[in-house]
């Protein structure tokens, strides 16, 4: 596919790596915020091909990983109801709640269905008027336009048996939250290109300025990632705490205005708890009052009061803040594997623990492969 294979070119990636080597003078800790980028970096082996001065640390940008355990428990409670059809993206099913996951509810006969898009969930609601269809609306700013549109469509089409369990998170507040933490030491950020495709990057210059940290909007293919890292290293070496865009083919400063408008119509900002990290002020979206009818937590208030417990072994909170590498967790690869995950970072394909496990981060550096 055009604009995909070109940006996977091993030769171009190696040239960029040579340029990075020629540019870097001092050690830098660089955080890629997005789990999709973590995955891509591990898959291409980019982390092992960078000069030793550059350490990549992995950020909290995995929506599956940061969805709080209380919400998983609520999802499990909703999915267990005979009057509910619970719909979700596939990677939420194995995320451990405090007692069960959605997969075990499904195995026990619960009506849990994997959908690719929230519009699919809406269709299920239309086809099953006797049940309430709940969609697990998780994600960053990338999925918010889709989820907002599903709610608007439900209203426009008069579909009342549709509700969303919202666990939306946003990137800029978590960057600020990380920079406020003394233990988190990050010199520069790679900002998630697809979040910026929706939101633009006008929210970032105040952050770069306040925390004296450069931020580079970066894509997902090896060439994109190498370009983003090169740009960031150039800014770091020049001592410039600026924002740059290294994903020009998809991202503009202002982003996707129609999508931003629909997000703002349906959602409002709220404090949000991040699994393993804690509550970050104004870091999430919740449905506006006007759309209360479509809010699963208001429609089923009895599932709101659930006390949740985490596995005591799991240090995914530290992993999600870039403070520990997955292999520093004593359970990594032992009690905790993708088949028996203790934490969400081992479940999601965007989770750092799963990426380290899958791509065996003890292995030798390999060439950037073409897919």
């Amino acid at each position, binding site marked *: *596919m*055009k*604009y*995909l294979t*070109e940006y996977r070119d091993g*030769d*171009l990636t190696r*040239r*960029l*790596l*040579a*340029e990075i*080597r020629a540019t870097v003078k001092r050690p830098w800790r660089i955080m890629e915020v*997005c*789990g*999709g980028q973590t995955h891509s970096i591990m898959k291409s*082996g980019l982390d*092992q*091909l960078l000069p030793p001065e550059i350490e990549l640390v992995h950020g909290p*940008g*995995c*929506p*599956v990983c940061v969805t709080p355990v209380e919400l998983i428990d609520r999802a499990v409670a909703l999915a267990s109801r005979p009057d509910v059809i619970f719909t979700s*993206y*596939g990677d939420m099913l194995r995320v451990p709640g405090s007692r069960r996951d959605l997969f075990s509810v499904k195995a026990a006969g619960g009506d849990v269905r994997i959908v*690719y*898009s929230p*519009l*699919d969930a809406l269709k299920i609601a239309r086809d099953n008027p006797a049940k309430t269809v709940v969609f697990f609306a*998780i*994600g*960053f700013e*990338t*999925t918010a*336009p*889709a989820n907002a*549109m599903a709610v608007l*469509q439900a209203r*426009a*089409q008069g579909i009342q048996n549709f509700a969303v369990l919202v666990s939306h998170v946003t990137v800029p507040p978590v960057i600020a939250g990380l920079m406020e933490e003394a233990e988190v030491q990050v010199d520069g950020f790679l900002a998630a290109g*697809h979040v910026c*495709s*929706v939101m633009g990057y006008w929210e970032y210059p105040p952050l770069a300025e306040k925390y004296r940290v450069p931020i580079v909007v970066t894509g*997902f293919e090896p*060439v994109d990632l190498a*370009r983003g890292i090169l740009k960031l290293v150039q800014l770091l070496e020049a001592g410039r705490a600026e924002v740059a865009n290294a994903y*020009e*083919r*998809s*991202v503009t400063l202002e982003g*996707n205005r*129609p*999508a931003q408008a*629909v997000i703002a119509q349906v959602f409002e900002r709220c404090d949000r708890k991040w699994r393993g990290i804690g509550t970050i002020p104004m870091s999430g979206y919740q449905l506006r009052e006007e759309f209360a009818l479509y809010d699963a937590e208001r429609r089923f208030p009895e599932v709101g009061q659930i006390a949740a417990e985490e596995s005591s072994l799991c240090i995914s909170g530290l992993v999600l803040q870039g403070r520990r590498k997955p292999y520093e967790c004593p359970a990594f690869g032992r009690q905790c594997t993708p088949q028996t995950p203790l934490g969400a970072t081992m479940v*999601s394909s*965007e989770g750092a623990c799963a990426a380290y496990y899958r791509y065996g981060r003890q292995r030798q*550096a390999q*060439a950037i*492969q*073409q897919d």
Partner: protein
Amino acid sequence: MCLGIPGKVVEIYERDGLPMGKVDFGGGVIREACLAYVPELQIGDYTLIHVGFAISRVDEEEAQKTLAMLAEMDMLAGELPDQPGDGED
């Protein structure tokens, strides 16, 4: 779930009042997507699809510009000696 995938718009139509389209991801994979957020999309355009929604148009001009810039850098970097650790294809 969060990964956006670029594809080529091959069909545009309307359903339930929403602009929809068929998007070709290559390798014979064609899926339906909602085009409401990128109304300027035309057949033949490249777009980024996220959970069934187009969220941006892949700008061909910018894509070419980046590639041309990298090709130029290629020529400069070509004069650098090979570095250990590069591995092979």
